[in-house]
């Protein structure tokens, strides 16, 4: 039949695709499957054996007989060439009967997937220990295990010209904003893209373009976080072959919450949240304010500090701004190399890092000890966030603040802060204002923002 010839030509006689010919009641039946995606034993056990049994029965309509009789649990009838290719590349076995219009796709996927592991990038001391895997069905299973409701709705869309990736939009009917779901669905459906390899690619497709580097979409590998977001009416996007799911729309305050926040007493959680907000501002301001005080507004320092700083800086030949920038770059380099190099280089990195950002550097007279402390404080303060994009966004604004400080002193910092605030307020996260519980003020939501108030007392 011409389907087989066409497939052979289009795949350039790919060895991976197996064509097996069988004769049943004088009719030629083709069994086509992709060797690498299917499990050989299930093909021989269920398909070949049942086909052999059919030899004894007489029937006019072979295709419907096979469909009734076959042992396989998932049988799909298809009638065109494109669907056949899709199923073939998804690990189905195709049964093609010559001179009959019908094709059958039988699921024979091999289990080339990872088992459920523990979360590695979002660690919670108290909280569930399962993490999403690359297989989207496993991931949906992890969500459904937690939300047992008919209202957990999923919209499926396939995108990618070559990858043909399955993308699921998961939401709770009645809680999520349906118009936003449809908007995202339409956007994804109308996307013309070669392929979607990870969920990050989707951020650029569905995200609204603005100049704020802060994220509006959260990516997570924790099922408990996804389910909590779903219950809050958020929309989750699930991409096959990526263990990171996307949650949207997210506002700035959401990035300060961790899944562990809800397993502790609200009063303790509040303190941790305050600490996180504090660290956000420390990470933003510390180098900038130091530069401003050291190079412009020395009169704002207490005299003891000034004398101390002056003595520490007396051997440093560089301007304070240059010094700060140099050390910032050193830290970023160290951070980047630490992430990229796996394990084996870690210990040598930390030793060398301690030399650059440590006493040796200050002894050499390149940086002042206080600058190392400033950079270290900034580095510590910019890391306690689950979402990596916050770290990157903070970095942008920190540079902006430093430029402001080095050109106009404290006034420059104020200008940069005005820009920062304007940017944050005018940012839209899928129709939601980015600083939402604070500006515009929403008192019920403020109860779970910087401080958390016991839900029973609400």
């Amino acid at each position, binding site marked *: 039949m011409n389907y087989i010839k066409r497939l052979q030509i289009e795949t350039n006689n790919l060895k991976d695709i197996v064509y097996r010919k069988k004769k049943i009641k004088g009719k030629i039946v083709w069994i086509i499957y992709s060797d690498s995606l299917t499990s050989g034993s299930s093909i021989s056990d269920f398909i070949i054996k049942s086909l052999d049994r059919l030899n004894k029965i007489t029937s006019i309509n072979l295709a419907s007989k096979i469909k009734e009789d076959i042992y396989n649990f998932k049988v799909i009838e298809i009638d065109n060439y494109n669907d056949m290719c899709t199923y073939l590349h998804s690990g189905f076995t195709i049964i093609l009967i010559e001179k009959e219009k019908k094709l059958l796709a039988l699921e024979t996927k091999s289990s080339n997937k990872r088992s459920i592991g523990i979360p590695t990038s979002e660690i919670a001391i108290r909280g569930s220990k399962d993490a999403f895997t690359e297989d989207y069905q496993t991931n949906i299973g992890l969500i459904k295990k937690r939300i047992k409701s008919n209202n957990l709705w999923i919209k499926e869309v396939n995108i990618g010209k070559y990858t043909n990736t399955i993308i699921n939009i998961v939401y709770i009917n009645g809680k999520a904003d349906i118009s936003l779901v449809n908007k995202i669905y339409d956007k994804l459906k109308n996307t013309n893209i070669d392929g979607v390899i990870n969920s990050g690619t989707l951020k650029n497709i569905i995200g609204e373009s603005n100049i704020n580097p802060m994220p509006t979409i959260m990516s997570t590998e924790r099922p408990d976080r996804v389910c909590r977001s779903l219950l809050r009416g958020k929309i989750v996007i699930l991409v096959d072959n990526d263990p990171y799911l996307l949650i949207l729309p997210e506002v700035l305050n959401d990035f300060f919450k961790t899944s562990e926040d809800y397993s502790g007493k609200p009063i303790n959680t509040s303190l941790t949240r305050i600490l996180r907000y504090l660290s956000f501002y420390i990470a933003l301001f510390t180098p900038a304010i130091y530069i401003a005080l050291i190079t412009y507004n*020395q*009169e704002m320092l207490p*005299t003891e500090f000034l004398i101390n700083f*002056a003595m520490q*800086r007396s051997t440093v030949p560089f301007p304070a701004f240059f010094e700060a920038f140099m050390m910032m770059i050193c830290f970023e380099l160290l951070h980047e190399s630490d992430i990229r190099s796996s394990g084996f280089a870690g210990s040598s990195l930390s030793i060398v890092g301690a030399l650059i950002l440590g006493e040796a550097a200050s002894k050499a007279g390149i940086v002042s000890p206080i600058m190392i402390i400033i950079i270290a404080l900034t580095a510590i303060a910019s890391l306690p966030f689950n979402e990596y994009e916050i770290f990157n966004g903070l970095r942008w604004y920190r540079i*902006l603040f430093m430029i402001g400080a*080095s*050109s106009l002193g404290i006034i420059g910092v104020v200008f940069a802060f005005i820009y920062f605030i304007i940017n944050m307020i005018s940012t839209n996260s899928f129709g939601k204002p980015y600083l939402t519980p604070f500006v515009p003020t929403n008192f019920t939501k403020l109860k779970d923002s910087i401080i958390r108030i016991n839900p029973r007392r609400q």
Partner: protein
Amino acid sequence: MKYIKILIISLFITLITGCYNYRELNDLGITTAVGISKDGDNYNLVIEVLKTETSSNEENKIETILYESSGKTIQEALRRAILKSPKRLYANHLYMILIDEELAKDGIASIMDLFFRDVESRKQFYVLISKDDIKKVLETTDEITAKSLVERLKVNDDYLSNTTPITFSKLLTKYANPNIEMVIPSVKLNDKEIVIDDTAIFKGDKLIGYIDEHESLYYSLIMNNVSDTVLTSLYKNEYTTIEINNTNTSINVLNNTFKIKIDLSGYIAEINSKVDLTNPEIIKEIEDTFEEDLKSRISKFIQKVIDKYDTDIFGFKDLMYKKDFKNYKDFNFKKLNFDINIDILLKYKGNGVKELNA
């Protein structure tokens, strides 16, 4: 494209940081004290500047350098001092200015004016009168003389109050007010050691005399500036000391008479006569003794200021202006009527109920 332009512009801004008010900390000569004296027509300045260059063998030891210069005006002398310093002199963190006694006797109007109009200094520095040669005073220690002196003044103010440390900004308000006169503490050298000495009192911008440490305390009491102090008096022919930790003074004007009411509370610190402290009568007796004694001493002090110096350092005229304006024009400091009322409350006797040697 727009953002690329903004990015390029902001990068350029970082390169041209030579603009508005930029000064690197390394280039600043942090001035901690300025001493001003006058020799004939010339102003002589002694400027104490921090030596912030550290050598590796002696860490964290701060030394100072003294620069001397002179000129027809103070500003001219300051400019000449800059020639001697490799760094720009930076007066924002000035601890104090020292004014020579002789110069103060001639009048300090020009100094007040100069530092008042100076945009750079913080006006939170202290002002002191030096009875000895300023250079010798500033040379006595290797450390920051100004810092240690100012800290001593502050500690004294907190625990003893027998000096009247004053910052330039506060001095300025007194100087600008014609109804109140200035009072500035003085320092002198005592065998290569700086000591805080008597307090100088002014009339107008001229130094006219000194009051001693006890009188300074009475002055502070009247001005309601005391937080903690000790009072010593004779009780049954033995010296007794009480510690005061709460004071409140109010002055009212009634029929041209100033009613000075001083409320003190504290406890008995040291008693040498053998008495029974558990007896409330005895406590009352001690209180009365101290009240009588303090009252007579304070009246004597006020009378002395009136008769000897005729300078209204207490600001009675200012009070008249505020509270009894009708009689303000007729106010005559020489004929001041005042009435002192002292109330001492001894709350505690310390830990022991009876003293050990009873």
